[in-house]
């Protein structure tokens, strides 16, 4: 980390903050924003991604929490939106991706354990990186800004600790 900062400051080149380039990041962000924008302009809906993980359970469990109107009435379009996400990434893979399927080097237990906390936390806090980060900040909501700063803080701390103690990461 210190060596990286030293290298970056020596070169005085802001692009070195992006060792893998920056165009695909900005371009991808604009596409993500375009998807959220198109959904809103055509249907008036707000497209955070974590709610689908609660609303879909309403098909499978009778528990009153999951049978709330806000989940039952939105579960259909949320699943269609999720299918669109898979299809969009598939289009990228076929058109621009590597010939073989993508995979990750992280161990399964790390994905599962992290996922459990992600699902529980995002639903308790009513939003994730897209719900609070994109839709919440996009509608200038102060609670969303505080949520983003909170999860960025705990995510930085966790990732740095994991790197130090477990040597996780690429």
């Amino acid at each position: 980390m210190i060596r990286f900062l030293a290298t970056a400051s020596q070169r005085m080149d802001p692009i070195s903050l992006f060792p893998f380039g920056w165009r695909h990041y900005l371009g991808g962000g604009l596409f993500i924003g375009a998807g959220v924008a198109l959904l809103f302009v055509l249907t008036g809906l707000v497209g955070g991604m974590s709610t689908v993980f609660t609303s879909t359970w309403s098909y499978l469990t009778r528990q009153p929490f999951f049978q709330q109107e806000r989940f039952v009435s939105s579960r259909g379009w949320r699943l269609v939106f999720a299918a669109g996400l898979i299809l969009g990434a598939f289009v990228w893979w076929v058109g621009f991706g590597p010939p073989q399927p993508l995979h990750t080097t992280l161990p399964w237990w790390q994905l599962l354990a992290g996922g459990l906390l992600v699902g529980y936390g995002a639903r308790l806090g009513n939003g994730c990186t897209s719900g609070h980060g994109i839709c919440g900040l996009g509608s200038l909501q102060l609670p969303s800004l505080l949520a983003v700063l909170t999860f960025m803080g705990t995510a930085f701390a966790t990732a740095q600790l994991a790197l130090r103690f477990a040597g996780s990461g690429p």
Partner: protein
Amino acid sequence: MMVTNSGSAAGTLHASLLRGFAVLASGVLFGFGLALSTMIRPEVVLGFLQWRDFGLMLVMGGAVVVTAATYGIAPRLMRIPPLGDHFHRHVSLLNRQTLLGAAIFGVGWGLCGVCPGPAIAGLGTGNFDLLWALAGIALGALAQGSTARI
């Protein structure tokens, strides 16, 4: 939910199909963006969280600017959206649950580098390792709802 001109069964079906197609097309743009920006790779997200590459700021920044402009302008140009009954709003409440939930979410995100959108979109690139994260998120959401008070 739907407002149709005719109110007939055929008109309602037609409007539902159009609306479904609009939702799907929006999701396609979103998923393409997640893949293009490499946010579907947990290694890239962890690289950001470990301060080796700051690309995620550009992804978030680009998406937020487009979203903010659209959320601000569209309701001024149209009374209702063409395929919906009204313009919804993302409602965030400033309370203990929001901040505690965000903190827990961040710990999980920092551990695995996967958040809900990429866990879903990544499947489109044949990355079935992400099913572990997807299962975790779904079970986490089930645990939250099962223990929540309405």
